[in-house]
């Protein structure tokens, strides 16, 4: 469960509270009677209302429970201000869905008003709002998945070699590695495995090294930029090594610009890990003898590289 939470965390838990809350808050003034609140709850089919002053500043909250107690205690015509719950647990506009869920877990209340820095009520959140927000977000994820499928099914983009133009039988690859993680700390595993594989196939160490370095860069790009999964395919031929790294992620807007040395769109956390210097494509180009990149926004990136074996002299 925790693992799943960790994985979906970036998708859901960082959602700002304003995307989850209901901004149309039904509230009451403190001088109303509980009987009036009871009618509001009944007509609006809600289970509680915040009590606010003329500046919409939060004063208290009245729930169905308070109404039931008032009916039993015979003070249903009493003023809201005398019977409301004054200690209100509020969420702040700066909170995220993570804090919302934690607040629901910590307190047994059915709703939490959302207040701005001046304690003014700007929204309200019930468990139903949380569920609806999650479903809406899931819908987006599903859309993304659908688009991925379309791209995957488009034959000429993903099934032909960019370099040779020939149909590519990827199932016949000598080496396959799925890049299916979202953790930058794992980037490079595929490249490192590929190097071991090539060495085991008797490829000379210098060629294996060039292949590994270029693949490492391509793999890191998938992890940093694609926002999706990808794969490494490698074909070992008698006089060359052919590597294809593809992803089905968001794609590159301007491939030419991305190829420029020093140009980088990497976020800071990636730079802190020693990447994102804008050298990726340059390194790939330098290490390979032939390289092609094709990308379309929303339709992933395909990088193909050819490495001649027993390359003499070229540094």
């Amino acid at each position, binding site marked *: 469960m925790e693992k799943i939470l960790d994985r979906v965390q970036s998708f859901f838990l960082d959602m700002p509270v304003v995307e989850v809350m209901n901004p149309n808050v039904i509230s009451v003034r403190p001088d109303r009677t509980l009987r009036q609140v009871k009618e509001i709850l009944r007509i609006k089919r809600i289970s509680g209302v915040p009590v606010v002053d003329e500046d919409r500043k939060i004063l208290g909250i009245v729930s169905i429970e308070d109404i039931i107690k008032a009916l039993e205690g015979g003070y249903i015509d009493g003023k809201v201000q005398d019977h409301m719950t004054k200690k209100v647990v509020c969420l702040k506009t700066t909170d995220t869905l993570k804090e919302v869920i934690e607040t629901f877990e910590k307190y047994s209340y059915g709703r939490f008003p959302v207040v701005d820095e001046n304690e003014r009520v700007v929204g309200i959140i019930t468990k139903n709002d949380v569920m609806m927000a999650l479903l809406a977000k899931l819908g987006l994820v599903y859309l993304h998945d659908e688009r991925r499928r379309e791209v995957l099914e488009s034959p000429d983009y993903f099934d032909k070699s960019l370099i040779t133009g020939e149909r590519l039988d990827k199932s016949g690859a000598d080496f396959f590695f799925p890049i299916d993680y979202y953790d930058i*700390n794992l*980037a490079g595993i595929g490249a490192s495995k590929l190097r071991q594989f090539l060495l085991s196939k008797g490829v000379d160490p210098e060629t294996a*090294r060039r292949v590994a370095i270029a693949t*490492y860069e391509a793999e890191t790009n998938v992890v940093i930029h694609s926002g999706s999964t990808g794969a490494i395919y490698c074909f070992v031929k008698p006089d060359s090594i052919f590597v294809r790294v593809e992803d089905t992620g968001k794609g590159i807007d301007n491939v030419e610009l991305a190829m420029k040395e020093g140009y980088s769109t990497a976020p800071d956390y990636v730079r802190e*890990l*020693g*990447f994102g210097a*804008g*050298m990726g494509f340059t390194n790939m180009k330098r290490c390979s003898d032939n390289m092609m990149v094709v990308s379309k926004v929303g339709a992933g990136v395909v990088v193909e590289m050819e490495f001649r074996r027993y390359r003499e002299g070229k540094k």
Partner: protein
Amino acid sequence: MKLSEILKELKAKVLANVQKVEELQFELVAASDLMSEVLAIAKPGVLLITGLCTPQVVRTADVVGIQAVVIVRRETLPSETIEMAQASGIVLAATKMSMFEACGRLYVKGLKPIWEV
């Protein structure tokens, strides 16, 4: 220069593959915090000095064929970095020294940059 002498000069503590310290020798040193730069310029047979301590450092060294890495400004390292170095057979050492001092000391001792201008 023998790796054991280098590590002594840097007052570095070996955290992985200590058994290789006596057998390795280095003439060239690359110092960088940019892994892309290491991929671009480093060659097998150099010693890598870096301030980064993530597992990436070891993976990068492995891909390039670097056999020893000294991490500056640190005494301890994340366990996954150490484990990965252990598994890849790369000597991993850490020193509290700054990058500047570490490089300066080795330069004075006659170790060479990977290219000279």
